């Protein structure tokens, strides 16, 4: 049990190649042989860990530091590439591609690169997966199952996803874009002990389904605040897919008055809905 969950670092990527140029060589080397969503997670997750002062890249895996990735489509682009090869016959199946057809590949790569031996979790809940990841990370930290978790959302776009969206008639609003946004969540005790700089505190969250109006009220109740306490309320940008929620949270915390309460509300056409409440430092 802990007395709270705080945000001690953050990182966001929309222009992948530029972000990768700033990464340490060992991480860039890992990114050179993995798919796009994993590269996004390596870049944004790595930046968040670096900002929090937790970017160890050698030594044994750290058992109290872990990762929670939220993604709407995960390794969709690899699935598409692998399935199209397989359509030519089983002899065309690629072991390299198949090994990357697991949505948790990005969490695994980030764990290897940054020596994360704690929980290594990947979740999907449509485009609200990023907020779901932050909420799950908060629950695990409050339950004492880790000291710090780098958590957020990421999705990669490309031809395979665009073709699926078009074929299924799923086009709604602006076309999706590559994006990843991560924050480091940490127990207040752990952050205090290592003198970490705090950007905000997670107060509460809620997840719902086919019920986007009620989810904000439930998140506020979980946080123990009322609608009148909210200084800044934002809805997420759906074209950023799972990165939209964490991106909106970082923006709201940056713009909120000192100590102000922010509410982020996210909803997906899949029916998933989420809301998260935080207090700016």
């Amino acid at each position, binding site marked *: 049990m802990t007395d709270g969950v705080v945000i001690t670092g953050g990182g966001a990527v929309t222009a992948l190649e530029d972000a990768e140029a700033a990464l340490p060589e060992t991480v860039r080397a890992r990114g050179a042989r993995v798919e796009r969503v994993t590269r996004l997670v390596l870049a944004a997750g790595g930046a968040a860990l670096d900002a929090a002062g937790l970017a160890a890249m050698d030594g044994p*895996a750290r*058992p109290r530091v*872990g*990762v929670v990735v939220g*993604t*709407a489509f*995960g390794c969709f682009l690899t*699935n*598409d590439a*692998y*399935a*199209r090869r*397989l*359509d030519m016959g*089983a002899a065309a*199946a690629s*072991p390299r591609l*198949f*090994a*990357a*057809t*697991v*949505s*948790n*590949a990005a*969490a*695994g*790569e980030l*764990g*290897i690169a940054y*020596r*994360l*031996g*704690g*929980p*290594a*979790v990947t*979740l*999907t*809940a*449509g485009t609200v997966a990023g907020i*779901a990841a932050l909420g*799950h990370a908060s*629950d695990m930290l*409050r*339950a004492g*199952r880790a000291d710090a978790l780098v958590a957020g959302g990421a999705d990669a776009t490309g031809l395979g996803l665009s073709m699926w969206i078009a*074929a*299924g008639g*799923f086009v709604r609003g602006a076309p999706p874009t590559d994006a990843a946004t991560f924050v480091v969540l940490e127990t207040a005790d752990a952050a205090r002990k290592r003198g970490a700089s705090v950007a905000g505190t997670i107060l509460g969250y*809620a*997840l*719902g*389904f*086919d*019920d986007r109006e009620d989810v904000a009220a439930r998140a506020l109740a*979980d946080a123990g605040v009322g609608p009148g306490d909210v200084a800044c309320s934002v809805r997420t940008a759906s074209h950023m897919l799972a990165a939209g929620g964490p991106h909106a949270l970082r923006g709201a915390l940056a713009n909120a008055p000192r100590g102000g309460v922010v509410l982020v509300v996210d909803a997906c056409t*899949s*029916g*998933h809905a989420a809301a998260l409440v935080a207090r700016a430092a």
Partner: protein
Amino acid sequence: MSARVAVITGCGVVSPLGRGVAAFWDGLVAGRSAVAPIRRFPAADLAPNAAAEVADPTPDDPDRAGAFALDAAREALADARLDVRAVGPARVGVALGTTLGGMQLFERWIATGDASGLACVPYYAPATRVARAVGCRGPVVTAQLACASSTHALALASDWVRAGRANVVLAGGTDLLCRFVVAGFNCLKATADRARPFDAARRGLALGEGAAVVVVEDAEHAARRGATVHGRLLGVGAAGDATHMTAPDREGRGALRAMEAALADAGLAPDAVDFVSAHGTGTPYNDAMEAVAIGRLFGPGRVPVNSIKGAIGHTLGAAGAFEAVMCLRVLAEGTIPPTAGLESVDPACARLDLVHGVARTHRTSVALSTSSGFAGANAALVFGRA
């Protein structure tokens, strides 16, 4: 979190050994294996081409993963004698694990251009289908930890119940067999014609399919409505290997951390555990890794261990949920099913007390289930007798 306790009040399965918990359990106890040559889809160019297939509960339903999950969820709800409307839809959640979602519909689209099932393709689709069908409006999330997915889905459910986010959660996993996954594991040279977990002659895994779902419920809520409790979900844990994307850590350090975390969450020492359900895939590396991790945590030969993957194949994102249902039956019956396919224990695994040949009578108060997957994902659950 609070002092709320998560209990299991319902179970449902669609398994290669049969539809429903009774058929599944009877098959396990009898030591039957459902692994056989694949019949459902063209497999002539697949080698090996054996797997454990399910007799579809709804044969005309193209969304097999969703149909499996829904059938298992309905059995679990009926077993729990639970009416979602009476609980309150916003207080009911769904947490499922899967590695493939509606992958065979994706294959069909690529092969034929038939786009009619594309809405069922995303990994989150089986959970949304279950949620909509049962009228749930609470948390709905899909866990993706490769072959540890449904193990962690039960952990999500436990967290939500213990944090007061839901009174009831349908938790489990679903996965299906298709060319995508069989050809994939074949090209990794990870498969064999039969699964022989922990056997000296094991050569690889045999895949399986199906769904298992349990009702995870707040203990006070269950008591108020007079529900029958099948077992308590005492602890959950997860840990990454941080070593390799497809091969397990030879020393089993990630699996060990996940089991230790689950025991710590349960507030129990290793000597409180009476039975361990191993991941036990039948691949040389996995089983040797588990022998190291389980042996190190519990001591050589101290606790009975089994694997059910020789019976139902490796059901991937559903595997941990199937093993959870098996653990609950072990707690209730005092019988441990044998490890189908295990005939001669590998000396490298001899530190484990492996149940094989015939079922073993063993009064069990606490059971631990461990799962491991690609990308170094590990998860573990601790169950207690009702």
